[in-house]
C-alpha cells in the first residue's frame, strides 16, 4: 500500500491544488467575495502555496526513498511531472481576466 501511495500521492496533490485554485477563483467571482478584496493577489498566493506543497511532495519522495528501485524512479518522475503540471496549469492566474 505504501508503495502505491508513493506513486500516486504527489500527483494527487496537483489535482487537489488545481481544483482548489479553480474553486477559489469561482468563489472570487461569486456573491460571497468581499467587494473590497482584490482577487488576483489571493489567487497568486494560492498558486504559490500549491507550488510549495508540490515541491514538498517532490522532496519527500527524494528524501524518503522507496526500497524498491523501480518504485523510486517512477515516483520521482511522477512527482516531477506534478510539479511541472502545477506551474503550467495554474499559470493563467498571472494574466487572464478574472470574472469576465
Amino acid at each position, binding site marked *: *500500500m505504501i*508503495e*502505491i501511495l508513493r*506513486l*500516486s500521492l504527489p*500527483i*494527487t496533490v*496537483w*489535482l487537489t491544488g*488545481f*481544483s482548489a*485554485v*479553480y*474553486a477559489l*477563483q*469561482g*468563489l472570487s*467571482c*461569486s*456573491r*460571497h467575495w468581499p467587494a473590497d478584496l482584490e482577487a488576483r493577489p489571493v489567487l497568486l498566493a494560492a498558486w504559490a502555496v500549491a507550488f510549495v506543497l508540490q515541491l514538498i511532495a517532490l522532496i519527500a519522495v527524494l528524501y524518503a526513498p*522507496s526500497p*524498491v*528501485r*523501480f*518504485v523510486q*524512479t*517512477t515516483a520521482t*518522475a*511522477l512527482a516531477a*511531472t*506534478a510539479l511541472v*503540471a502545477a506551474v*503550467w*496549469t*495554474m*499559470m*493563467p*492566474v498571472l494574466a*487572464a*481576466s*478574472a*470574472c*469576465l
Partner: protein
Amino acid sequence: MTDARPSSVSQPRGKALRLHRGLARIWGSDQRFRGWLTTSNNNDIGTLFLIVATSFFVIGGILAMLIRTQLATPDSAFMAPQVYSQIFTMHGTVMMFLFAIPFFEAMSMLLLPGMLGTRDLAFPRLGAYGLWVYIFGGSAVIIAMLMGLAPDGGWFMYPPLSSAAFSPGIGADVWLLGITSIEVSAIATAIEVIVTVLRYRAAGMSLSRMPIFAWYILVVSVMILTAFPPMILGSLLLEVERALNWPFFKVENGGDPLLWQHLFWLFGHPEVYIIFLPAAGVIATILPVMARTNLLGYGWVVAAAVSLAVLSFGLWVHHMFTTGIPHIGLAFFSAASTLVAVPTSVMIFSWIGTLWKGRARMELPMLWIMGFFATFVIGGLTGVMLAVVPFNWQVHDTHFVVAHLHYVLIGGYVFPMVAAIYYFMPLLTGRTRFFKLGEVAFWLVVPSFHITFLSIHMAGLLGQRRRTWTYDADQGWTALNLVASVASFVMAIGFALIILDVAVNAFVAVRGRRNPWGAGTLEWAAAIPSPAYGFASIPIVQGRYPLHDDPDLALHIARGEGYLGDASRNRRETLIVSTARGEPSQVVVLPGNSVLPFLLALVTSTSFLAPLFDAYIVAGLALVGVVALALVWAWGLGARADEGHVDAGHGAKLPLASESPDPPGWWGSVFLLLADGVHFGSLLFGYAFLWTVAPNWPPHSYLQAQLWAVILALTGALALTAGPRLAVRAIATGGAVWPTIALGIVGALALAIAAASVILDRPDPASHAYDATLWLLAGHVGLHTFLSSIMLFYLAARGAAGYASPARIGEAGIVRLWADFTVATGLVALAAAWLPGAFA
C-alpha cells in the same frame, strides 16, 4: 463453459497429466446448462462478457447506420425528429456504456490471470455478479428502446431538458437507472481487477516485472472507482428530482442546471481515457512482439499512464467552454487540456521507438495498430485544437466534434481492440486463423472510416450542427453527407466481416501451437485454450519476459514445478504475493461455483428497474433481498478452525488469506470505500457549488444545529470508533466480543439520530435545493450507520458460530474499516449541514 477435458495440445505425460486431471476437477464449472448461471471462472465470465459486449456493439452500429441513412440526403423523411433524437441518444449511450467499457473489462478478465501468472481473479463471484448486473441493466435499456421508450436528450442528458417538465415519460428514467446499474457492475469489476493486479501474481513478479497491460488496467480500474461516483451521484440527483421533485437542477428553487454538467463531465472526461488506456495497454503489449523486441521505456510508459489518468481529472470544464465560465477558469482547463497531450505523446513515441529498435513485421494485429496510429493521431490533434478556447467557441456542438470523438473512440479504441482480438485469438480459442477475411476487412474499414469522418469534419466546419435531424439542400452539405453515409456503410460491412471471421475461426479453424507470435509474457505459457485452472502451478519469474528467459517454462509449470503444484488439498488455491516485490505471502482459497451472484444480480437489478414502473414496494423488497443475499454470500466463506501455515511448494509455508490480517476482502473494501468516498466528496462539491453560484440562494433560513444533536454525534462517533477496535482486540485475546459490538452499534445509532435531527428540522426537501441536499447528507449518514450496524451484528454472529479466532481476524478488520469510514464521513456530513447556519 470451460472444458474439463484435457486439451488436445500435447501435455507432458505422467505427473503433469495427473495434476491436470486433479485441477480440472476442482476448478471446472458445471457442464450442464445451468453451469452458465453458477460459474465464476474467469474464462467463462470473460467469454460471456465479450459476447454480450460485442452484441451491444452490433446494436450500436445498427443505430449508427440508421443515423447515417437519415443524414444521407437532405430533407430526409426517413425518421421524424423525435425518433432521430432517440436514435442518436441510444447510439451514444450504447457505445459508451454498454460496449466500450464492458468490452475491455471482458478482455481483462480473460487475459489478466494468464498475464499475471495466477489462476483466477481475486473475487470470482464478484465478477459473475458484475456480469449479470450488466446483462440485466443493458437488456432493460435495449428493451425500453424497442418499446419506443428510449431516452432522447443526448448521451449527456442535460437538465432541464431531461427534467420531468421537458421529458415526461420514462425514457430519461430508463437512462438514469439503467446506466447506474451498469456503473455498479463496472465498479464491481474494477475492484476485482485492482486487487488481482496488486496481490494475485506469479512468484517474483515485482511491480517492475508486471506486464504493461496489467499496469494500464490497474490505472484504468482506479479511474473507474474515482470517475463513476460523480456520475452516479448526478444520476441519483436527477432521478430524485424527476421522481420526488427535489430541486437540484431547478433554478426557481435554488438548483442549477450547471451542477449536472460539472458532475457529468467530472465523469465524462476521464471516461474518454478510461476507454483509451486499455487500448493503449493492448498496443504496448502487442507492438513489441510484432517488433520482436522489448517495449522501449517501460518505466516512462507506466509514469505516462499514471499521469494521464490523474491529469484527466483536471480537464472536465473543457466540455463547458461555452457555458459562460469566466475566461480565467477556461484558461486553467485549456492549459490542462493541452498538457494532457504530453503523456500521450510519450506513449506514442515509445511505441514508434520500439518499432525502430526491433525488426518490425506486418502481421494482421500490426496492421490494425497501424490503423490506430493513422487515426488516433488525427483525433489527438483535433482534440488539441478543441482545447483552444476561441476555436472551441466556433466548432462546439457541430459535426466537427462528432468527427473528433469518433477519431478518438474508433481509432483509439476499436481498432486496437480488433488488433487484440486477432492477436489473442490463438490463446482464447486454441486455434490459428485459417480463413483470411481479416485483411479484407481491414481494407474495407480503415479507408472508409477516414472518408466518412473526414467528410463529417468538413461538414462541421461548414456549420452543420450535431443532433439536427436533417438539413436543407441549399445549405451546401449534401455531397459531404452522402459521401459520409456511403462510406459508413462500407465500414459497417467491414466490421460485420470481422465478427464473422472471428466467429468462424473460433469454431472451425485448425488447432494451433502454443505461443505462435513468440511473445515473452506468461499468458502464453498456459495450455491453450486455457483450462479452467489456468496454470498447473504458479510460475516463478525473474524478469519482465519470463518466456524469453526460459523457453521451457510452460513445461515446468505443467509439471507442477512452480508454487501450489499439487491438487491434493482439493480446493481452489492460488498465490497471493506482496504488492511491490512479488514475494509469496499468502495462499488464498477461492470459492467454488454458486448461483448466488446470479440471484444477487437479479434482485439488485430489480431494485434499480422497479422504480421505472413506480413499483416502489417491489424496489424496497428487492433492497431487503440484496442485504439478505449479501449476508448469505458472506456467511458461506471462511472457516471454523485454524489451519496454520500450509505448504505452498518450494519449501514455503504460507498462511491462508483467511488467517492473515489483510485478506483480499480488506483490500477490496479499501477500494470500494475509495469509490464511496469520491461519491461523498462529489455530494459535498455539489453542495458547495450550489451555495457559491446557484441563483436563488441563500434559502430563507439555514438549519440551526441543536446542541444535543452535536453532542450525540460526537459521542456516537467516539463509540463507533472504539467499538470495532475493542472487538478486534477481544477476538485477538479471546475476550468477550458482545459488549464491544454493542458499544459500536449504540454509537452508530447515536450518529443516525443526530442525522435524523437534520431532516426532522427541514421536513420539506422539495422546497429548496438546500433542504434536498441536507436530506442527502443525512441519508448518507443513515445508510452508512445502517451498514456498519449490520456488519457489527454479523461480526458478533460470526464469532459466536466459531468463524473468528485470533488468527482469523481479517473480517473484524474489515468491519473496523467500514466503521471508521462511517465515522469520518458522517462527521463531515453533519458539519457540512450545520456550518452555514452557524455562520449565517
